[in-house]
């Protein structure tokens, strides 16, 4: 994409997009949102980044995000499987309504976030590579 304004603005906005996604993931149990929504935000931000800058990378580097995404899909999946194997009271249970209050569910949310963000990236890359 050759839009100059988009590139300049997006370079500064990207960090805030990622931070917002992380915020949604971490506060998934005290406010609307959660792993899926936050992962979607992070994935869309990264996707926009690679759409704007990634296609002019060297051919060797261009496959790199796809590889990293594959690894993170595995990590996220393993973290998510925790919720089925461990009882739900596992981990620190503090005051309801605060950030650290749900034990293992935060970890699972984080795993879902990783999974969704990297899935979006890898789907994008698989579709782009077909050209």
């Amino acid at each position, binding site marked *: 994409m050759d839009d100059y304004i988009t590139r300049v603005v997006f370079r500064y906005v990207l960090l805030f997009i990622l931070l917002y996604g992380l915020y949604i993931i971490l506060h998934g149990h005290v406010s609307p949102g959660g792993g899926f929504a936050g992962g979607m935000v992070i994935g869309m931000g990264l996707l926009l980044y690679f759409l704007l800058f990634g296609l002019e990378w060297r051919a060797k580097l261009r496959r790199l995000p796809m590889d990293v995404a594959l*690894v993170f899909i595995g990590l996220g*999946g393993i973290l998510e499987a925790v919720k089925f194997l461990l*009882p*739900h009271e596992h981990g620190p249970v503090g005051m309801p309504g605060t950030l650290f209050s749900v034990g293992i569910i935060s970890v699972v949310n984080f795993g879902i976030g990783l999974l969704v963000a990297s899935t979006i990236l890898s789907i994008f890359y698989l579709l782009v590579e077909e050209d």
Partner: protein
Amino acid sequence: MFLWDKLPFLLIIIILLLCFVMPFFARWKPVVCPYLTVVTVIIVFVISVVLTFRVAGGEVIHYHAGDWPPPWGIEIFIDELAAMMLLLLTGSCLLIVFYSLKALTKEIPGPAIGWYYTLFLLTLASMMGIVVTNDLFNLYVMVEIVSIGAVGLVVAKGEKLSTEASLRYLMLATLGSGFMLFAIGFLYQVTGNLNMPYVAAELLEVRDQYPFLMWATLSFFTVGLGVKAALFPLHIWLPDAHSSAPSPSSAVLSGLVVKVYIISMLRIYFLVFGIEVFNETFLRSLILLLATMAILGGSLFAFVQLDLKRRLAYSTVAQIGYIFLGMGLGTVWGVTAALLHIIIHALMKICLFMSAGAVYYQTGRKKVIHFSGLGYQMPVTMAAFTIASLSMVGIPFFGGFITKYGLALGSLEANNPYFIVLIVVSGLLNAAYYFPIVWQAYFTSGHDPQMTMDKVPFTMLVPIIITALGIIYMGLFPGRILEFLEQVSIRLLL
């Protein structure tokens, strides 16, 4: 003990975890993937054997995911039916994986093999999930994953025909699961539960208040699962998809994937709605009518196909008709025969598709008319093929005869003896399209009728022999398994 309690869940989660790790290997070390798959399927097979022994000891296994008790959480429930299906699924998949180690090298492009095994494991895991789950929404999710995995197994070949067939399969499967999800929504709105026994208990009280909703829900379930299980007028995706897939995928799709939908249909009709609703509504006559059409129509369509795998695919449509016939009869013998046919048809179709794949592997022949003299070039493969086709026709001492006998008893039990005529006619039709192949292979002499041994690898030959022996065993000693299935069907029809 931690692992012993978690065993029913480990069954599924091991494979799903491996599916997350497998893309990593598929990208960098594709050589490892087949062996990793073999090891996993062996582990799962051992676990399901252990679970079957626990169930056979009189225990009914309940497992609550994440320790949430049933009305809130997902419940995994293994009774005799589920244990039988688990054993069938994992055992057949073990054979198919061994077969596909060598067979895939000629049928799909090299870089795709690692991804193929990922999809294969995903399909296996979610099929087991459909069989063991007790939660309606979880059933929907698993059904959707099976659709995606099965379409992936078809599209892996990367040819024009298979790509096109897989798109049609995906569209119709998604349409079907949309109908199913809507039906689940209706049930949830009326009963406020998703767990099947709780839904059934609520339905007993409220079903007279909402007669139209019951009709709508039943028809939505029938259409939604019927598309996926290839009930006759909804089967149009099946022949293309099953015949253009690589032969290990055809074996999985034809032998196992369509069956698990029928299992969940049985559960929903008989356990959730109950046999009274099934008898009162239009559903029973509809299923009997569609099954009759499937048996006749599938056989007639199969008769005119020249491509071997297409002929086998249409034969699947007809055989699914048998299972629905047993289900629609709604008597103990009928349902027993349907359950038995699920097992025996899985064995027969896997054997037939694997033999077709072996013939393609050695000689590259696909058409039926090119089979002349093949009985001398590939004696073992063609012997297995002959056994399976004899069983399909329903010759005594082979597995297929037992189900036909059971269906005949069931139709007498339901005061509907016309179906015996249907069964005999369909046996003749089966003979009309299976025996020409066998005749071609053995009795039309090629140029040099000297005996040679099969030149296909050992790992492909052994699964074919095992399935053929299984068919003969089912035909000779059906007593114990019939008793067992009778118990299961009595419990279903209660």
